[in-house]
């Protein structure tokens, strides 16, 4: 019984059915209470009536004895209509003196709830009183009205109970089937997605019901998953594409090393092949690094990083390179800007930005490095007054293997800025690129 009850609670049908059953039982209980109260009240009312009548007849008895009582009874019976009181007056021998009540006179005086007449089809409530001369007076009231009321109450209660039970079961079935229908739609959508239709979404009817809200949430989750899958697919195809070129080159060089007879040529080919394989390994290392940073597992190594000192250190490291390649440098570094972060990652972020600018701009370009605190953010901007990047290339710039027109002819994995974006995100920061009379990338990092 217990497992059935606990499973019933869990289905909508069972839940509604149980609630309806509870309501029907309450109706039954209320009906029973009403019956009891009404029954008692009516019996009491009858008692009052016969007691009052008996008192009136006893007054007659006091005035003129039994004969006067008999006269009064005859008078009352003559004037009465159907359902009024019935009387019987007998003397000490049991001889009827007056009254038409066709029932035996109870031996003992007092109230009697069920006085059955001689034919057996009338039940009365009666009060028997002994008079001084040994005669007995019975005043009786018919219980038919009382029984009728009782019956009516019981009937109404039974009907209410049955109706509530029926409505409850019908309601439970309706609610259950509506729920089932909605859930079946969601279920079949989920099944379709499992079977490979990733574009399928949960049905919405715009009602704003709880089903709609759950469906909408599920749809947002599916969108997110789809976007991640898309990204993954894009990355894997990019990886495959970007690996093909160096792998083909490696293959050709090894082929060349095998086929050549000249020892010096062979040496050169093998060295070139080694350089190619190293480039491939670098590519993988960069990809792994991005994945690691994106997994955000780096936050536990965060400490306070003074960005000004870090920028100074990197500018110092890059200055010979910047000058040797004919670039100029302009620095505006605000002192005292500190962010929580991973020093090594932030160093790499800045180095990648400097690398990027240095490699993709012609000699004579001025590179600008700026650090400022804006509200609760630190903003690092590294820019140049070079030829810039086309506006339509800006959005893709921070994706893996993104190559803008200006970087197409220079060496590079196309992963540098993707790593910059990943590091900024790991620091709960943002990166943005602008190309407006030059090109610049701004990294905003929260100071708290």
């Amino acid at each position: 019984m217990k497992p059935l009850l606990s499973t019933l609670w869990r289905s909508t049908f069972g839940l509604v059915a149980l609630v309806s059953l509870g309501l029907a039982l309450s109706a039954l209980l209320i009906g029973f209470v009403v019956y009891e109260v009404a029954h008692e009240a009516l019996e009491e009312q009858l008692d009052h009536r016969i007691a009052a009548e008996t008192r009136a007849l006893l007054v007659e008895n006091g005035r003129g004895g039994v004969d006067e009582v008999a006269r009064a009874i005859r008078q009352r019976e003559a004037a009465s209509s159907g359902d009024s009181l019935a009387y019987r007056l007998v003397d000490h021998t049991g001889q009827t003196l007056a009254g038409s009540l066709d029932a035996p006179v109870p031996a003992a005086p007092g109230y009697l709830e069920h006085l059955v007449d001689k034919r057996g089809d009338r039940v009365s409530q009666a009060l028997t009183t002994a008079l001084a001369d040994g005669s007995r007076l019975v005043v009786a009231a018919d219980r038919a009205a009382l029984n009728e009321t009782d019956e009516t109450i019981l009937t109404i209660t039974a009907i209410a109970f049955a109706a509530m039970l029926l409505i409850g079961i019908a309601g439970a079935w309706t609610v259950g089937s509506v729920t089932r229908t909605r859930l079946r739609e969601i279920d079949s959508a989920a099944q379709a997605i499992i079977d490979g239709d990733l574009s399928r979404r949960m049905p919405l009817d715009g009602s704003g019901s709880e089903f709609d809200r759950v469906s909408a949430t599920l749809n947002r989750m599916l969108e997110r998953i789809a976007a991640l899958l898309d990204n993954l697919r894009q990355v894997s195809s990019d990886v495959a594409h970007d690996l093909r070129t160096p792998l083909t080159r490696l293959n050709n060089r090894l082929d060349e090393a095998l086929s050549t007879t000249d020892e010096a040529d062979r040496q050169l080919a093998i060295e070139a092949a080694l350089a190619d394989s190293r480039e491939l390994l670098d590519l993988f290392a960069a990809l792994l690094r991005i994945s690691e940073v994106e997994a955000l597992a780096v936050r536990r190594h965060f400490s306070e990083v003074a960005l000004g000192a870090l920028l100074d250190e990197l500018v110092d490291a890059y200055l010979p390179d910047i000058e040797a390649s004919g670039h100029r440098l302009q620095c505006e570094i605000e002192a005292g800007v500190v962010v929580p972060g991973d020093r090594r990652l932030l160093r790499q972020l800045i180095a990648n930005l400097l690398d990027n600018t240095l490699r993709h701009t012609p000699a004579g370009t001025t590179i600008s490095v700026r650090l400022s605190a804006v509200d609760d953010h630190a903003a690092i901007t590294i820019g140049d007054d070079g030829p810039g990047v086309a506006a339509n290339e800006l959005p893709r710039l921070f994706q893996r293997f993104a190559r803008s027109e200006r970087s197409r002819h220079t060496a590079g994995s196309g992963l540098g800025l993707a790593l910059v974006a990943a590091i900024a995100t790991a620091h709960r920061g943002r990166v943005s690129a602008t190309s407006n009379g030059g090109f610049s990338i701004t990294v905003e990092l929260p100071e708290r």
Partner: protein
Amino acid sequence: MRILIVEDDVATRQFIVKGLAALGHQISSSSDGRDGLFQATDGRYDALIVDRLLPGLDGLSLLRMLRAAGNRTPVLMLTAVAGIADRVEGLESGADDYLVKPFAFSELAARVHALGRRPALQAEPQQRLIIGDVELDLARRSVQRAGRRILLQPREFALLAELMRNADRVMTRTMLLERVWDFDFDPRTNIVETHLSRLRAKLNAGGEPDPIETLRGAGYRYRGDE
């Protein structure tokens, strides 16, 4: 050098064993962490190469137990993951150097050489490095060549000190980036090259022979005293 290699991957182990044996080192190897620790505690090795992930006992625990037992043999730790956290953890556990797989053999060989004789250097920190006519004062941060004072930028000074400290040993570009600039990544630009060319220009301004050799595809080496 007597070197112990604790590495469970057969291909990697053989690659290292063959390569180092060809350079004239005496190599022992183990494929299990517990066995590796047992062998290492013999203490007769000049250097240990320990993989981070090992059956029996992982590399970090091996290292901690070894150090706890008072064994100071220099350790080069290998790892398959380029984890930033792993690197820090490895060095904190007592590794002297850290190398991420896959690596070029030349990189491994250079690092193993750099490990040799390291403890002796650490035991008595030198105030001055004097090789030939070049004299570098670590405390006063000054450099003289043949009595001529040479003014160096801080990074140029650090670069020269690192090269002189490891005289006669090959320093790879990656090692220099790690030790002089604290870069645990390889920038695509020529930081090492440009700094070296400036350093050379200042060092050899008097027409002396260049003490820094460039070994193509391998790295740089400071010529020591004969």
